[in-house]
């Protein structure tokens, strides 16, 4: 276990040290202490390492992650795991806006609540939120899966493309072109796997599935506001 004191050594030293880890590094376990809400912690990682952050972070924690597992023992600011490509990010606390925005792959688990625009423009990432999510979540979401064990705010899935949304609780309102869809056996199986991956003991049968009505896929003047 390598321990890195962010307050003492600084952000540049932290990220350059983590970037220097090759695929076959022996230093596979890292602990970051004193994050104190700093921005851009552990961004752009590209090695199969595990990073534990002991406290809360600011903006863009684990942004553009590849391969690495980043575990935040606290809450995260806006844009955590934005544009993630692969790997896993786990947040023990709550997440601010844009969690998992534009993520292309990997898994983001938020054990608390996520604020607005969770999964905005997601492109293949899987996001599992144990609590609730805020308004305009999954806006223009292209692909991947968003699982919400609690409630969803207003305009869920507005202008949705092919992402799948699973919500256990209430949905305050659906956004344009987002509709409830049938939960078929393949969706139950997929959701069970996602819940297991996210460390969530909810039952897949308790969820509803939402997806795109595909009415906005080609421009039609009658759909314009």
């Amino acid at each position, binding site marked *: 276990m390598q321990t890195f004191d962010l307050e003492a050594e600084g952000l540049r030293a932290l990220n350059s040290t983590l970037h220097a880890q090759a695929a076959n590094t022996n230093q596979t376990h890292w602990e970051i202490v004193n994050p104190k809400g700093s921005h*851009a912690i552990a961004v752009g990682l590209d090695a199969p390492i595990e990073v534990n952050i002991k406290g809360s972070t*600011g*903006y863009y924690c684990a942004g553009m992650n590849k391969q690495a597992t980043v575990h935040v023992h606290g809450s995260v600011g*806006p844009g955590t795991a934005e544009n993630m490509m692969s790997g896993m990010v786990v947040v023990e606390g709550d997440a601010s806006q*844009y969690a998992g925005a*534009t993520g292309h792959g990997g898994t983001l688990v938020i054990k608390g609540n996520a604020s607005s*625009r969770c999964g905005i*423009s997601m492109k293949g990432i899987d996001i599992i939120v144990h609590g609730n999510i805020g308004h305009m979540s999954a806006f223009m979401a292209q692909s991947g899966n968003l699982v919400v064990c609690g409630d969803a705010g207003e305009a869920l899935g507005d202008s949705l493309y092919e992402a799948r949304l699973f919500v256990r609780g209430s949905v305050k309102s659906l956004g344009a072109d987002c509709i409830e869809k049938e939960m078929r056996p393949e969706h139950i199986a997929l959701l069970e796997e996602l819940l297991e991956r996210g460390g969530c003991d909810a039952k897949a049968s308790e969820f509803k599935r939402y997806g795109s009505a595909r009415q906005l*896929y*080609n421009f039609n003047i009658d759909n314009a506001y």
Partner: protein
Amino acid sequence: MKDDHNGAPRTMPIQSATFSNPVNAEIRRAAATGIYDIRGGGAKRKLPHFDDLLFLGASMSRYPLEGYRERCDTNVTLGTRFAKNPIKLDIPVTIAGMSFGALSGGAKEALGRGATMAGTSTTTGDGGMTEEERGHSNKLVYQYLPSRYGMNPDDLRRCDAIEIVVGQGAKPGGGGMLLGQKISDRVAEMRNLPKGIDQRSACRHPDWTGPDDLEIKILELREITNWEKPIYIKVGGARPYFDTTLAVKAGADVVVLDGMQGGTAATQDVFIEHVGQPILACIREAVRALQDLDMHREVQLVVSGGIRTGADVAKAMALGADAVAIGTAALIALGDNDPKWEAEYNALGTTAGAYDDWHEGQDPAGITTQDPELMKRFDPIEGGRRLNNYLKVMTLEAQTIARACGKNHLHNLEPEDLCALTLEAAAMAKIPLAGTDWYPGKPGTSY
């Protein structure tokens, strides 16, 4: 003209200037279809432009340099503020961002070939980075756009600079649309969307709002790329003084300022023609912002929107820009709108020089299309050669003017080298009206 039944002359028919034939035709088109006109390109209306400025040249009070023989440098370095590896270019004319998707892979390759031969940079666009342009571009600027189509950390690390696109001159405040007919398998895969559907590009970024957030976003991008890459911020010509000020505050190495003549692959005609300012009105305000922050030349200014000739380059630089970017002009150099395709333009209901339905993917020149048969018409090697020639001519023209003004580097051109032909140009560019020492709004004067 026939007389009326009493033998008196009839009133001559007069076309309305307000309800002109083109206006009426558009009203009829809108009434028939119920949809606004979407097209490519930039503003087509006549605007105050560089043509409304002249260089004064040398005479008794200025000493010229010998044309062709005396040295007149053209190099420029972009990104000197924070980046470890600023971009060094031989000429101050760069290629603006244009997407793969809007353009064919061959056209992107040609832009890379031509720019590399000329010693300048090219820029990606919405849709990500292709091997054609990375492989053929010695210096490649990677655009960071609201859609984040194709965005990934590997390409961030293999680019030479990052351009965060906040807006563009053709549509400041607007997003984009790539219509389904241009979404080939390859384009769809790069954008992670189904083939054949319209692909929207959002008008604002998904994970930051405002310059305070952007400052943190730039920190993230610098951390991911080891602080090596220059970071540009591109804005449309909206409020150039404040936009430039805020871009510098957010941490830009370079500000890219695009006037309303700057092209787009596709947006509403009403947006192109009625939102934003001409580049002539933007440059001095952006320079003033940089000077007020003591950042002029420390943060470089790249301007675009209607740059066509070496004279335009020289005028932009005399007004305070460090470099310019060309898009539409580069496409014309490649062969876009060439009269040799006139019959096919006619078949599309248009004519060479006016073709702007780039979004429909039927470009006879094989440039703004993903149709395999049309793409075969375009030779990227020949296209690259033509672009290089054009860039050389622009540079030679700008040098000719600079030498005539007694300047041994294009960067030494200055507002004092210019006069304005119209009151509008004088006011916008803050350049004295020809034959006077005055321009509207000049401090210490009244009018």
